[in-house]
């Protein structure tokens, strides 16, 4: 939730340059270690990226991607193991087919291609992780904030999150 509030704060002052929020789904078995290695090597990359660890790129349901965008993220990056290296043998092959088609569909319905990207990054490719994240952040910064519903965004000051209230944590619904 604080993620949303950050930008609201930034947006309201109006003076600061736009800092995009990027959500990176990182496979536990490769990219997550790659990001770790980048940290160990003291590599620096933009703090705009929030890394979300998933067991496999095949675990990334396209619903997550749309939900992230709807809830105030400006770009989504999905990272997994190189084809052939999947810890679960085939998860990334399925992810590849599915995300290739889904990406085309998002572009077809008007999303900028830069806002949703997929990369294969292994556990040893710390540099590739840094470069990918940096380039995604730069591309999305160029594009500006993602406004999924122009009418709504104006109405509630870009806090599109209000369109789908999240249940209180641990609460019964």
């Amino acid at each position, binding site marked *: 939730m604080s993620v949303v509030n950050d930008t609201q704060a930034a947006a309201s002052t109006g003076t600061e340059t736009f800092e995009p929020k990027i959500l990176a789904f990182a496979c536990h078995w490769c990219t997550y270690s790659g990001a770790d290695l980048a940290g160990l090597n003291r590599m620096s990359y933009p703090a705009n990226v929030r890394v979300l660890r998933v067991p496999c790129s095949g675990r990334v349901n*396209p*619903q997550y991607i*749309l*939900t992230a965008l*709807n809830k105030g993220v400006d770009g989504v990056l999905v990272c997994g193991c190189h*084809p*052939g290296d999947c810890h679960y043998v*085939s998860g990334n*092959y*399925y992810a*590849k*087919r*599915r*995300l*290739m*088609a*889904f990406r*085309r*569909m*998002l*572009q*077809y*319905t*008007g*999303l*900028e291609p830069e806002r949703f990207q*997929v*990369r*294969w990054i292994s556990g040893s490719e710390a540099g590739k992780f840094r470069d990918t994240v940096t380039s995604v952040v730069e591309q999305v910064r160029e594009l500006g904030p993602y406004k*999924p*519903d*122009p*009418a*709504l965004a104006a109405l509630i000051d870009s806090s*599109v999150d209000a*369109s*789908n*209230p*999240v*249940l209180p944590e641990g609460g019964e*619904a």
Partner: protein
Amino acid sequence: MTAIQESIQKRAAELLESGEVTQVIAWTNGRFTNQTSPLFIQNAADAGKIVFNEYCVNTLAKYVLNEKIAGKVGVCVRGCEARGINRMIADNQLKREEVYLLGIPCEGMKDRETGEALDKCLTCTHKNPVVYDELLGAEVTDTVSEEIDKVRFAQIEAIEGMSREERLEYFNNVFNSCIRCYACREVCPVCTCRECFVDQLRAGWQGKQNNLNENRFYNLIRVFHIGDRCVECGECARACPMGLPLMELNRKWIRDLDELFAAGEEGLSDELDNTLGRYKTDDIEEFM
């Protein structure tokens, strides 16, 4: 058409009489001129109500799922219904022996208001049922597929030719008109989950608000869920009370999968072979 109508009536009566099926699903005259509605009959005496003309626009396949509980169902199948039936068998929703298929070669249906051929019929690739127990009438010839494909994907190509801003505006308008009645899901022979993601309130995938975000979410995920299995029966677009061009979403997916992974057409057999449910190690690569 009248010959086919007579044979359906005759066979429906015989099947119900002999007890081979408990029910027959066909069409009957609707309330308005040139309109038909689905008909469900349990008695041979009602067979005379069956109508078959060029306004039988409803695809009957999905009804079978609810009706089969009472016993074996006899159902009229044209190309579109037959592919839906195959699809449901492949998805393990239906067993072949639970239905008796009265095959009908079909020349295409017309819109009752304009009198013009339906889009789904103009682009139909299988006018003869691909599966049936008996065929009532002589097979018709299919238009060659290259010719059909030009029409079939013409709209997709037109949209792809627009600029990104135009596409965004176009689809925002489309999604804005959706009232999320879920009729498109209800009629679809591919949408057969007992519990749909939109109904999983605790998971909260789909908010209840009717706004552009939620509508876009619904429509994009609907098409993701059916994309690799859609049999192009056009029921979703027909049932939509708001006239959303849903085939423009379905066909985009269908054509992409075909170009990328040689998906081919769905519902031609009852084997389970979903394009997104399999992979090849040498699939084309673009995420390096």
